[in-house]
């Protein structure tokens, strides 16, 4: 009896000691879907991580694991991070949604933040950016600049985030160019440079002279550069190494302020579950410099649209809009509500093909 109580108190003392040590430093974990050098999505999340380190210096320790497949393996990685004493874990891809929820159940004292998902819990927040606002600007430029009237779109997976982007780009391309046609390829990967380049090449061979991508690497930019007279947009990151041509503009995801704020909240003990969805106005979505390859008047219009969205005067999904099947979606002047957008699983009128289910 005496021996066991001695053991127990020793264990408690040890536990106290380690938790005291843990309090000194806030440990923040990041789970990435691609390599940090992908030049796109993961690259920007990693920039956010570095910003957290910069901001808090010695008070914080960050860890990350890259190229984690979406699925059971992700659960293993998150569990490992939690066991190693992470206080806050950012899981940065849509496919980590269920693994995040599962692991969060097992570690009620660890805070989780899942990017681009919609499932929350007491210790799970979700955050995303309104990329579709950036897509609206891209759609406008694309519709104005295409000569073949064929715009190629490389999708990753048929999830609401990607479908929103396609719809937003299409609506705004169509508005300025009624003859425009979208060709969509689903790559079924977030990161596979060879496949992304192949997809871009196929779209170009089938007449596209604008390539929009929702995959993470810069490979489609390289393919467009090879082809010569095709324009592209940086995705998730500025991809300015391909500016001024073929890359004429970009959507930049700026996660740093959010990551810093949330880490601060964990330090203060003020962290609570939130559902963040910020756009151009809050600075989470940035529009990369529109290069001189874009005629001045188009550039001006694009910037005006960006300003209107930043001021909250313009919503990219403003009626009248119909769904692909011809049924009414938004009446004149009506704007889409966040619930519909978050679960968007339909094309708008005019897009060809079906969304894989």
């Amino acid at each position, binding site marked *: 009896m005496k021996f066991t109580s001695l053991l127990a108190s020793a264990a408690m003392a040890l536990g106290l000691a380690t938790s005291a040590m843990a309090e000194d430093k806030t440990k923040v974990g990041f789970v990435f879907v691609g390599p940090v050098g992908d030049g796109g999505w993961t690259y920007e999340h990693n920039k956010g991580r570095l910003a957290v380190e910069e901001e808090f210096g010695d008070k914080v320790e960050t860890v990350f694991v890259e190229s984690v497949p979406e699925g059971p393996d992700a659960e293993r990685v998150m569990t490992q991070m939690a066991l190693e004493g992470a206080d806050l874990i950012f899981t940065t891809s849509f496919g980590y949604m269920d693994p995040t929820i599962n692991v969060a159940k097992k570690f009620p004292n660890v805070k989780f933040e899942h990017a681009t998902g919609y499932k929350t819990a007491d210790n799970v927040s979700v955050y995303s950016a309104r990329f579709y606002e950036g897509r609206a600007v891209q759609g406008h430029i694309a519709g104005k600049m295409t000569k073949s009237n064929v715009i190629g779109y490389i999708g990753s997976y048929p999830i609401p985030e990607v479908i929103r982007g396609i719809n937003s780009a299409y609506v705004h391309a169509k508005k300025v160019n009624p003859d425009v046609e979208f060709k969509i390829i689903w790559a079924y990967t977030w990161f596979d440079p060879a496949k992304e*380049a192949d*997809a871009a090449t196929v779209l170009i061979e089938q007449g596209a002279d604008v390539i929009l991508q929702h995959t993470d690497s810069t490979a489609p930019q390289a393919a467009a550069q090879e082809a010569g007279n095709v324009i592209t947009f940086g995705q998730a990151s500025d991809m300015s190494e391909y500016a001024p041509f073929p890359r004429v503009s970009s959507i930049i995801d700026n996660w740093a302020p959010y990551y810093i704020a949330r880490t601060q909240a964990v330090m203060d003990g003020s962290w609570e579950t939130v559902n963040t969805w910020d756009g151009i106005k809050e600075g989470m979505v940035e529009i990369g410099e529109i290069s001189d390859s874009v005629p001045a008047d188009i550039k001006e219009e694009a910037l005006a649209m960006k300003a209107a969205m930043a001021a909250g005067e313009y919503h990219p999904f403003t009626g009248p809009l119909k769904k692909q099947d011809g049924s009414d979606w938004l009446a004149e002047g009506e704007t889409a509500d966040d619930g519909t957008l978050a679960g968007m699983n339909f094309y708008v009128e005019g897009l060809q093909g079906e969304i894989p289910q």
Partner: protein
Amino acid sequence: MDLGEINPVLLLASLMVAATPLLLAAIGELVVEKAGVLNLGVEGMMIVGAISGFAISVETGSPWLGFIAAAIGGAVLSLLFVLLTQVALANQVASGLALTLFGLGFSALLGQSYVGVKPPSMGDIHIPVISDIPVIGPILFQHDPILYVGIALTATVWAVLKYTRVGLILRAVGENHDAAHALGYKVIKIRIMAILFGGACAGLGGAYISLIRVPQWTEGMTAGVGWIALALVVFASWKPWRALLGAYLFGGITVLQLNLQAAGVAIPVEYLAMSPYIITILVLVILSADKSSAPASLGRIFHASH
């Protein structure tokens, strides 16, 4: 849906480009496995080849030097595998996996200053007369030289394995290393040569992705091609021409399914996306009904004392 938008000439031409990295890696691994060694490090050797080739061709401005560097890079990395499995007699599966992990990390380190750089272009060969033949010319005779190297390599490996004394010895080592040793052949030495050859081929395959197919450097850009090459060797029953067929089928259907998607063909995209895997496996499994089996000593460790 508009099938007319698919240009069959361009389709067949890009099929060959998509298949070449896979073919190069598979042919190299085929020789390694014929010698009785299972090297699961193909992916790692490919990615190291991709960055060595990329870096050297950017620095020197010569894609040819780049490809030579890629072959050397892949072979040098495979030396690590040689050291582990042929000298230290470590487990081949574990060593191969370690090689892949090491290669992925090491290439990321090497490549840090090469992100976003454009490599010099190799250009396509334009042989007068035959490359001007309509249809066939653009499909077969207007490619980069490395693509033809891949085909030539397949033919050479096939001929060497089948008709030459060197090939016979290599196969003997792979089938029964004790017997080969008893006959006085240097089993370890022959296996080392085979592993180095495999490494060089994988390196070439990797550089083909970073210098020609994409062309750019991105971390982890081989994205699993090495694993597909490994599977391909097995499904091809260790026969070079079948590996070529498999690579072309896989590359071809990958490109074809992208084309069908872009043309809006009414086949569910999920089926299209899985079709390269299914069709390649089906065809090669049907072909392998002749019961050709794996080299008998595959994956077994050899030591002269046994």
